Every structure is written in structure tokens, then in C-alpha cells.
């Protein structure tokens, strides 16, 4: 079970969290202006890398705040956590 460092609460068990998929997939400013293909890309297409991946988590059974984490999908190591709206930090 992952030990996830919530940026507000500190390290907590994974069972307290809710996974929110890939981070930095912003809701389009004007969905009506998008083609079907562009909209489908927003809806259905997500990265699936082996390695560092920026993803969203919600501390659902804790402070109920959303945040982003950079996690290595191969090792499950969490390299960084940061708040929504902040840029993805550079991680080694």
C-alpha cells in the first residue's frame, strides 16, 4: 500500500485517497469550439507511461483536498506532490 504525502496532511495510507487519473488535463475553455476528434481526445485519451507520471489524487477520507503527484508507475515511488494549479515540478 502506497504511503502518500498529502501536501496538507502529511504521509497517509493509500486507502485514505481517491485516484483521479492524469493531471494537467484541463477542461477546454470552449468545448463547443472543438471538433469531435479534439473533444474525444480530451474525454478518452490519457497517457500511460512506464515511469514518471503526473496524476491527481484526492485525500477523500482526510482533508478532502485535491492535489497532484508525480509517481513512477514502475516503482510506485512518489517523487513530488504539489497543489492544483501549480506547475509540474522537475523531478529526477
Amino acid at each position, binding site marked *: *500500500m*502506497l*504511503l502518500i504525502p498529502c501536501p496538507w496532511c502529511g504521509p497517509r*495510507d*493509500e486507502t485514505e485517497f*481517491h485516484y*483521479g487519473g492524469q493531471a494537467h488535463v*484541463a*477542461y477546454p475553455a*470552449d*468545448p*463547443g469550439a*472543438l471538433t*469531435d476528434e479534439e*473533444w*474525444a481526445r*480530451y*474525454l478518452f485519451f490519457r497517457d500511460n507511461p512506464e515511469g514518471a507520471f503526473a496524476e*491527481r489524487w*484526492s485525500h*477523500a477520507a482526510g482533508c*478532502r*483536498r*485535491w492535489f497532484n503527484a508525480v509517481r513512477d508507475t514502475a*516503482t*510506485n*515511488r512518489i517523487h513530488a506532490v504539489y497543489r*492544483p*494549479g501549480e506547475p509540474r515540478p522537475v523531478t529526477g
Partner: protein
Amino acid sequence: MTRAAAGGRIDRSRVLRFRFDGRDLTGHPGDTLASALLAAGVRRVATSVRFGRPRGIFSAGPEEPNAIVQIEEPFPEPMLTATTVELYDGLVARGLSGRGRLADRPDPARYDAVHAHCDVLVVGAGPAGLSAARAAAADGARVIVADEQPEPGGVLLGLPGGVPPGSLAPPGAVPSGSLGLSGALPLVSGESAGPPGAEWAAATAAELSRLPEVRVLPRTTVVGHYDGNHLVAVERRTAHLGAAAPAWMARERVWRIRARRVVLATGAHERPIAFAGNDLPGVMLAGAARTYANRYAVLPGRRAVVFTTDDAAYAAALDLAGAGVRILAVADARPGPNGRWRERVREHGIEVLAGGVVAEARGTGEVTSVVTGDGREFEADLLLVSGGWNPVVHLFCQVGGTVRFDDGLQAFVPDTPPPAVEVAGAARGLTSLHDCLADGAAAGTRAAEALGGGGSRAGTGRPGTGRDRQAGGGSPERRGGVRRAADGAPQANGHALWLVPADDCSTHFVDLQRDVTVADIRRATGAGLRSVEHVKRHTTAGTAHDQGKTSGTLVPAIVAGELGVHVREVGVTSFRPPYTPVSFAALAGRDRGALHDPVRVTPMHGWHVERGAVFENAGQWKRPRYYPREGEDMAAAVLRECRAVRGGAGAMDVSTLGKIEVRGPDAAGFLDRLYTNLMGTLRPGSIRYGVMCRADGMVFDDGTVIRLAEDRFLATTTTGNAAAVLDWMEEWLQTEWPSLRVYCTSVTEQWATVALAGPAARDVLSGLAPRLAADAADFPFMTWRDTEVAGMPARVCRISFSGELAYEINVGAWHGPALWSAVLDTGRVTPYGTEAMHVLRAEKGYPIIGQDTDGTVTPADLGMEWMISKKKADFVGRRSLTRADTVRRDRRHLVGLLPEDPGLLIPEGTQLVEHERLPAPPVRSLGHVTSSYLGAGLGRTFALALVSGGRDRIGDRIFAVLDGGQAPVAVASPVLYDPEGARRDG
């Protein structure tokens, strides 16, 4: 009896009586079921699953593949290994062939769970583990030591020099003895420079237990090692006490431990060699036989042959010889065994067959003779086998450690460790006691020092405390692959011998529990399988409940031999938790029965229970489904309740509906972005029905929205979706629209709500709320009023989910029971449950989100185009409603269905087709039935269904696929009852 007259770590002053396969037998405290059976001369313990071959005791630990038993008394437990069952008085067991039997009565024992944190968790209390724990504790770390045995010591318990439990050596003394894992000369009893190993272990564990920040857990098996050093262990607290177990004590406890660092000192398992008849009772791992002789004072046979590929078995041979077993010969597969060993066993008159092998173990029912490769036949009842030692890397690999094949050891050893994990001792391939002690101490120190600040109290130059910083640094194993024993004597390398070649390999067993032979593996590779994972699945080798602990290296080695590649290229199969079987009862712990899942009840629950309501689960809520009267079945009760609502007045407890207060200057704009229709134009005092979609345009939830004030709304949700809707709102607010000034608060449990429905509802309400102007003009549909009902402050909403004139009366949760009683005490109102509510709403074509929808249904599919605002620039999901897929004419629409037989109730989920007689498959499904009831208002059965292009098929005849033939149904509008809405205003 084959119990030696003296020695062993058993308490001979007490006799334990037990029964096995119908025979009354005895043993002593300190015995396992296996050692007691061997002491009683029981050779055949179980029967193999595929071939029905007799099987005996093969090992002395959790790696046992053969001796699988069923406990019958004091409480049935299936598929335990006789080698890990501690003997107790009154034990009744029998040998198994394959599956066991689960108890047919509830388990009276308690099971519990513990959550713990520590700086350093040490897995295993053998020499390496105890040294690690001592070193880490000395550096100030909070330490937990978990070990599967009833007493500490691990392999030391099986060494000679057995002394009664309880004798302590001076703390800190260095133990003596040979682990028997390698070529280090065994310091047999009497020659030791230090105290016997078991004494040292007991003393060290006692010393550790006295420290306030150290916890030693015996009888505790770490079964899972997960990310972030989260480990799960099972502690067996009372099973070894049998019927004498105190009822107050949990039988087992699951420990969930979060450790900052972990030291894996899990030891090594001896492995067998594949040869003909290697499964017969009497064939035993050499180290196991040594343990039986030394620890349990049991002679597993009288005349023995030893078959080995390394020096380990010599120590076993000598100990057994010393205990009175006649060792006829040592067949050593190596051409030139260690001269000192040969010398030593010859002193005991034991013949060594250099380069020799055992070709076959013979006997019916058990070993009676052993045939060596040169054709000689030895009359023997015991055959000791040692094919080398496999480090126990299960936990290491579970958490992501990688292994490599060590040519010196001829085994897979830990390579790259996962973060914050150390491996020490035999678990990483070390073979001498001295090395294991030093390695454990070094690992313990490294673990403590890695925590930072832990090393301040560290001593220096403490005996047995290594100072290596680098994982594995300085270990004998890493020094160019040449291992040296403590005394400097060079050790022989392991010798690769996996199987003794033969034309017929059909009794060369590899996985004893699954009855997999070399012949089976050859068939698999012959069929073209090259991956060891595929061979595993094809042959089932390694899939039994021992998970291939003895076959785990043998299988890839034999596969490699067949493919003509090195075993390192074949590799090992994945190691998955649990390391040893865990009972479901232990995992469930206290989360059983009423505590399985939290139960939520409304303030009026007591009344429902008192009146005999039949409940249904809605998420965690208990909701009255119907209130049967004397002699009524469900159908009769529901019909009566529906008629009461259609003909007079009914009341329902709807407190479970989710209620979320949405508040703030931007609340209206926020709701406009989430609901498909306009909420911003709603006036305070009014109510609007709303639907929410996911971004993909599929309906997610529905409910009413009440505007309480300019900046304050109350949104209701479906009962089961309340938490998901709150999550949804918070997610958008936090991640996409953080600038909106909106707060969402769940108030579901702050309110008790009673739905009052039926043509008489207004009269009833007026009687209860004399100050409320209740007529249709003053209190129109979809508005709300604050007033008093039965003297209680109440918010009354005029909304209807039945098509009848209806109200929802909200009061503070505390007043719920009083309101409910007041409504029913009028004598004019019938309580109704969820089933009647479902019938009433379905007659009106109101969908239940989650029953009539399944995440693939758009508002338009439900016939709710009118709910989609044309005025708003956007709402979540809007763009998806014009995708090519969502504007298809043949999408599945919600329609009504009227069976031609008005008494036929079509089961929900039934498939719908165009054909009266089913053609050959494939048959296109038109859709399926989502709701189906006997309608009181309609006076017949009806259904709701999702039907392809359904609105274009209204009036068509289609067919429901039932067992025994197709039933014709007419497609209809989903609004079957009172389509003009005449009843809404009473």
C-alpha cells in the same frame, strides 16, 4: 516409537493426546503435529491429489508440500501443513488428498487486527534477524521482530545441543554451531566455543523484549510486503492451545505494519532433487531430518541413505548418526566432495559415493530400499535429500526486489533491493553462522542509521556488529564469488544437479503437492512453451497452497535444461502474497456480521422495525421495502400500499435522499455549470428538477434543487450517489474552477424527510399545518414553504415522485420520529416502502438513475431533451451530446413495455429481440428490461426498458427472451399512468 530417550526442545513431563486418521496418539509440548506423527511411527500422512500416491512428511516448516492435513477438532480447519501445526491436547486431524473441508458451523473464535508503526521491522528471528534487531535497537530504533516459530532462533532451533526451553545464555554471547547450509565444519555439541544456538536466541530475544521500544512477535508470519514498506503479518495467538484457548483472546491477529526500514532475514529453504520415486514417505529433506532429530528428538528412520549436491547434508548425516540412525551411504553428486567432510563421516563408518546419485527410491507405501546410480540397492527406510538451498526471497520479490542467479550457490539470490529494504543472512545466500550473525548486525545498523539520528547511541566494536554501509558490502558472497567459512576453510560451491536422468521420468516429482513430474514439464516444453510462467500455468507447478516453495527453482532449472539455456535466462515466476495461506476469518477480523459494513439508519428506523418492515439495502442505508400485514406476501403488501397512495394518502420515509447545501456568491453559476438545465434563473422559494452528466454526456445523477436564498441552494441526490455527487462538486470546484466562491456541505443526516403523497395529501397536511396556505394556488407545484408541521419547524416542498399530489416535509433529524408519528396518527395515511415507490414512479415513467440507466445513457435517451438548456453556453457534458455517437437515431431509448399477457411479470434484465422465434446465433439484442412491476394504477404488469430506437418503435410488437420461449410485448411511451398529469394538483 522412534523418539530418542533424551534431548530435544520438548517438554517430556507433559503428555498431549491427539488423534490422527482415527488413531489415538501422544506427543509433548514443543512438538508439531509432524514431529509427533514421526515419533509415533506414522509415515504415511496424506495422499497425493492427482495420482493418489502415499505421501509422508517432507520438510519441517512452512515449505511442506506433502503433509497436508484437515483439523477436525476442536474446530474444523482445512489444508494445514502438519509441519506448522503445534501439537495440543485434544487435536483431531486427518490426512488429506487435495481439498479439505470448511466448517459447517460459525467459527466461535474472535479474530482481530492491529495497526502498528515502527522504525525497523525485522522479519525472521534466526541468527541474522536477531542480530539485526539487536543492532537496530542499540542504535535507538523502534523495532518489531516477527517470526513464524513459537520460539526465537530459526535454524538454530534445529542444531545440536538441544537444551530445554527456558535456559538462557548470557546476553551478548556468540552462539556456536553450524547452520548446515554450507561447508563450514559443524561444531557439534560438546565442541562449541559458545552457548548452543537456541540458548543464545532465547537470551537475545529476552534482552530485546526488555527494551521499551522493541516488540518481539512469535508465531507471527509476515505474509505480504507491499509498497512503501507496508507489511501484513498474521499472529497465531491461541490455535496452539486447542480447546484450552481462552475465549477472550483473539485466535489470530492480522498486523498491518508500516515500517520505515525493513530487514528481511527470512532464511533459506532446502530444495529437493528429481529422481524416480522421490515422493515416497521416507524421502525427506536432509535439513528437516536434522531438525527432527535435534529439536524434537525424533528419529525419522532407522537406516538412511543421504543424497546430496553440497556439504549441507553431511551435518545432518552426522547428527542423525549420533542420534542412532544408521547412515548406509552418502551419495554425493560432486566428483570431489570436501575432503574434510568425507574424512569426518568415514570416522563414523559411513561410505561416501563420490559422484554418486540416487536413481530410485523403491517401496510400496513407503521407502524400503534405495538404488544408487551404480546399481547398488540399499535396504533403507529413510532417504535424506539436499539439492542445495534457496534463499527465501518471497517478500523481497513481492515488494519489487529483483533476483539474479548465483552460480556459486546455484540459486536465485536478491539482486537490486527495493527502497528502504535490507536483506540479511541466508536470505541473501550467506551460508555460515558467523557470516549470518555479522551480516544481520550490519543490516540492523544500516537500517537504524538510515533513519537519521538513530546512530547516536551506537556502540562501536560490539561483537557481531558489522559496520558496512553499502548493501551487501564486504559480504563473503560479494568477494568474487569465493565463499570462505569463518575458520577460513574454503567452501565447496554448490553443484548443479536438478534431476537424475532416466528414460521414464513419470515419478520424478518436481511439485509434490500438485503431482507435477519432470515428464509433465517435458510435455510442456515439448509443446513449445518457453516461458516459465507459461510452464507454470500449463503444468500447475507452483500453484498449490505451498506456492512452490520447494519446486520454485527446480522448475526453471529443468525448463532451462530442456531448452538448452542457462537457468538465469529462464528466471523465476512472480512471487505474490500471501507467503503462506491466510484464513479468510483472520482477514475479516471483526468486520463480520453487523460490522461487515457500516449501517446507516434514518431517525424513524425504530418505528419501521417495530412495525415489521422488510428492509432493503440502498448503499449502506437500511430502507423499508414494504410493511407486510398479517397474511400478506410482498406482492399483496406492495399492491395495497400503491392503492393507498393512488386512492388516499401514503407516507414514506425518504430521509436517505442525499442533501447537499451549496452556498456562496457564485453558487448559482456553479450549479449552472453542473446541471444540464438552468438553475440560475430559479427564484428563492422555488424548486427545479435537475440532471447532471459526466463530461462524456452520460447521465450521472438527478434530483431536485431548492433555492433557499440568492446565495444558497439545497441540491438533493439519489440515495446511493450522495457521496459521489459531493465528490463531483468538490472536484470541479477545486481542480477546474478554484476562483468560484462556493462551499458544499452534506446535510443528508441533518434532516428527516417524510413524503406525503396521494389525493388526500393536502387535507392531511392542512390538518397538521394549520398556518400553511396549502391550496394549489397559494402553494403551487415545485415551490417550498417554511412552516410548522405538528408543532415542529418544517420546510415543506411540493414535489412528486408518484404523479400524485405530494409533499416532502423536512424537519430537523431529531424531530423525525415525532413528525412520522404525527403523520401516521392522523389515521388517514398508509406507510409505504421503496417497492411501492418504485412501482408508482415507474407507472409515471420516472427513471431511477442507476437502475434504468447504466452510465451509457444520455438525457436524450431518457426522453429528457427538454432538460437540456439551449441558453447556457456550456455545462459539463454538453459537448458530448452532439458527438456522432450520441446523436445516433438507433440509440437505446427509455420506453414502456406492456406484455400482451397482462399478468406476465418480465424479469428485470431480460433481453429484447425482434424475433418471435430465435434464429441461429448471433441474435441482435434490441435492449433490455430495466424495471418491471405489477402496477396498481394500471391494473396490470408493465416494464421500463432501454430499446434501440425505442421511441420510433412505439406501438411495435417485440419479444422478451424468457426461459421457455419468447413473450410478445408492446412498446409504449414510458409514461403509462395519467399521461396528462391531471393528478398532480389533487
